[in-house]
């Protein structure tokens, strides 16, 4: 099959909108709705049986986000390819802007108020970075990825926003950016020994990096290493979370009957520790069911990626799926005391508008990849005229 060169109007791969809606992965939409539904129920419980102050707002955000997701899904994947660098630079400029604004005296305000919604540049960056890296590696051959010089631009693309976000300081997002970027590097075919080298270097840098951590961040790590050390201070969250989960047992204490959650022993139950609350009220069965839903969503992402015929789509699909996975894993591992406390919410379930938006937008991209999976795109991107 020959490489195609086309204008959008006469695109042989053009699919009408109605057809695209039919091609939409409704199963995936259903899974996402189910996860969000569980979130609404848990927020209802967290408010002691009230839609206020969390559940109702979360539903409205979901409605807006879901609509946006579908719009993005039916948008041609090549448009996203073209917008990839642009969105990356917009996100980067916004990150720099809030950094400067923060320094000038706005304190820890890390968002830009858009009226109906507060845009957090670091969230936008999570998606943009995946798009930009996918775009970059889409243009490289297997041999190209072996060249060190060609790896420098994408490394900078990861390093710049990571450094900015780390300064905020937001360790959780930094980890997500680096790990999400690393996944793309991996899938693009960067040699294993290079990963080993970077990983080894990172381990060696830990003692140096430790000095740059803030006091509370150091405490979090130390507390993770020995939570009983400080049961009423920093270790309190994790200890109470484990008590809540463990006391939930096999079948849980019942909806709205979690004593740890409802008597406020569990902190942040509507955001970072919502999984704990679910585990307390629905037990191992409930927790496993939720985990199964996540596994299905992630598996779906893989199926979409593997069936996609263009490298950009494949990279985007696994990229967003992996970011999603990282959210799930970091959050659940954290509330169960497997890793230190990092402020990463449980995607689709935790209360919070920006994360909900980020996740739904990235699922929109995933579905766009799915709908446009048969479109082949040249390494240069199709309509710049070069082959």
């Amino acid at each position, binding site marked *: *099959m020959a*490489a195609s060169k086309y204008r959008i109007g006469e695109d042989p791969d053009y699919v009408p909108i109605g057809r695209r809606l039919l091609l939409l992965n409704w199963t995936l939409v259903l899974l996402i709705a189910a996860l969000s539904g569980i979130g609404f129920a848990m927020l209802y419980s967290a408010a002691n049986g009230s839609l206020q102050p969390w559940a109702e707002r979360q539903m409205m955000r979901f409605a807006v986000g879901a609509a946006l997701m579908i719009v993005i899904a039916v948008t041609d994947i090549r448009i996203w390819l073209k917008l990839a660098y642009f969105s990356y630079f917009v996100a980067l400029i916004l990150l720099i802007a809030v950094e400067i604004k923060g320094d000038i005296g706005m304190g820890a305000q890390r968002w830009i108020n858009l009226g109906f919604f507060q845009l957090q540049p670091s969230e936008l960056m999570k998606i943009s970075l995946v798009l930009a890296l996918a775009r970059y590696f889409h243009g490289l*051959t*297997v041999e190209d990825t072996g060249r060190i010089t060609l790896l420098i631009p994408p490394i900078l693309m990861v390093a710049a926003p990571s450094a900015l976000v780390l300064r905020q300081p937001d360790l959780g997002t930094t980890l997500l950016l680096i790990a999400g970027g690393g*996944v793309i590097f*991996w*899938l*693009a*075919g960067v040699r294993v020994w290079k990963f080993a080298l970077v990983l080894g270097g990172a381990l060696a840098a830990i003692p140096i990096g430790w000095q740059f951590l803030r006091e509370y961040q150091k405490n979090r790590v130390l507390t993770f290493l020995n939570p009983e050390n400080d049961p009423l201070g920093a270790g309190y969250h994790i200890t*109470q979370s*484990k*008590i*809540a*989960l*463990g*006391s*939930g*047992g*096999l079948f849980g204490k019942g909806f709205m009957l979690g*004593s*740890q959650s409802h*008597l*406020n*022993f569990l902190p942040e139950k509507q955001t970072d520790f919502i999984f704990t609350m679910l*585990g307390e009220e629905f*037990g*191992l069965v409930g*927790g*496993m069911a939720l*985990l199964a839903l*996540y*596994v299905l969503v*992630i598996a779906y992402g*893989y199926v979409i*990626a*593997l069936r996609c015929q263009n*490298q950009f789509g*494949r*990279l985007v699909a*696994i990229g967003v799926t*992996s970011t999603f*996975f990282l959210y799930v*894993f970091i959050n*659940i*591992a954290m509330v*169960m005391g*497997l890793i230190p406390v990092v402020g990463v919410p449980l995607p689709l379930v935790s209360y919070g508008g920006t994360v909900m938006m980020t996740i739904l937008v990235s699922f929109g991209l995933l579905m766009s990849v799915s709908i446009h999976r048969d479109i082949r795109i040249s390494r240069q991107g199709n309509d710049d005229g070069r082959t």
Partner: protein
Amino acid sequence: MWHRDSDRFRLFTRRALMLGAGKGILLTGLAARMYYLQVLESDRYQTLADENRISHRLLPPPRGLVTDRFGAPLAVNRQNYHIMIVREQTPDVRRTLEILDQIIDLGPDTIERVERDVLRRRSFVPVTVRDNLTWDEVARVGINAPDLPGLIIDAGRSRDYPEGPHLAHSLGYVAAVSEKELNGDPLLELPGFTIGKSGVEKVYDLALRGTAGTSQVEVNALGRVIRELEREEGDSGNTVVMTLDLDLQRYANQRLSDKESASAVVMDIHNGEVLALASHPTYDPNAFTNGISHKLWNSLVNNPYAPLSNKAVNGTYAPGSTFKMCVALAGLEAGIITPNQKFFCNGHLDLGNSRFHCWKRGGHGWMNLHDSIKHSCDVYYYEISQKIGIDRIAAMARKLGLGEDTGIDLPNERSGLIPTKDWKEIQLGKRWQGGETLIASIGQGYVLTTPLQLCTMTARLASGKAVRPHLTRDKVTPEGVTSRQAEEFPELQVSRANLARIRDSMNGVTNELRGTGYRARISAKGMEMAGKSGTSQVRRITMRERQTTGVLENDALPWKYRDHALFVAFAPVDNPRYACAVVVEHGGGGSSVAGPIVRDLLLKAQELQSARQGISAANQPNSANLHSTPASNNQDEG
């Protein structure tokens, strides 16, 4: 190009699958952790969650009552109203307190303290505004309740002693638990909980305390009570019935009230029940229940007459001549003297280089046993004690209850001291001197006794049984109250005839002309008492003093160098029932100062007894004879 792309795709697929597998492993790890927490460790966490959620609160039990032998209340629990404020229930703490200040006087200090306390506690924790509200104040606050949001009136219990100072020394008092007394019993850690610190309140504290109830409440992370899950009421403490007779006790206090420092004990000679136990001066135990003020405490501690001390059980005094019965009985029992054997008293006895004086200058002449006690002749005892020896005297003293704890149910009893040769060797590392036996024989020197021991001695002489004093009608243990098994005390192992001779001699003291206690006798028919006076020196009389000024009269000496006045007696003579001992510290002569008090107490005890048995004591013409003093030995014995 496309085959290159397919290279790329194959690589992608391989790597994606590896990545997927990695994720699978991590997710399996999460599932395994979940299983570990929620299945394997579930029981432990369930317990921890309940410990978080359920708070056990103790409900303090009402303290047991204490009554006198006839049921008159001596220690009770009074409703104690206090007013508290809850910050979150009032829009303005200061405003509420200002309104309250107009209803019941608080003063600016209280308002300031409450405002401070309120901010230190969580908003739902009540803070006490004022304690001990009168009923009138409670009513006024209640009527104005709508203007006083956030105020709660709470009823607690506090200990009350309706008789005030009358029974302070035997009852003791309760007060807040001190740091040292915490022993892990959570009851003691309850705010406002009080325990017995002295007297019967201390000795029977566990029995009076009762068992705490518990209330299980569900609390949230801030400690706010959400609801009560379970409640189990406690058991109030046991009622303790004392052997004291409130009327006699009051009378004893009144009778001692004009002395600087004195104590008195009246007991039943058959069963050891203490009917009155007074120590003067006294204090008001109510002052301790809600925390005694620093000023009052200091004034009690620094008072030279030691009001906090129960002198009847922890004051030790040389018994003086009241010890002579003991020496005489030891001589009779050992067969060393006979009742009619006579010794000549010329006023002194020389032993080695020392001269031992009789209290009566010029001497008593020939003395037999009866007369030696009646006149309290010292030389007679100097003579016989040399023959008897200190160890035999000490053995008899112990038989009569001296030199050891009587075992009364009061804290800090002192055991006094009865010296022996061994005791001196061991304690002082010196040999016993013959002269020391002479000094001991008149109850001076090393000999020390408590008023309670002297009363016990008298009771044993009168009953011939080894009675021991006690303060409660029933046996009280932490487990509960059981009636005393008609406590039969063992016989004294002393010949009845000899005891009778001693009693007869004591009768001579009070009921025969020229007896040293004749002026203090009971004239009421059938109520007569038999007793013995004692006057114990607290200073050394030097040879120079005897030769120059003569022995100084008590009135010429400062209070603390004056003699202690002692008197012991039992009554009625014919059929003894009561024993009494009185010690007036630095009071002067035993028969003139202590004797009349003993007389009045023994008379009162018998009158109360008759009155209670429905026999009118009114027709007994006792008071008429009380002060008619025939010519008798005006001088007290030494």
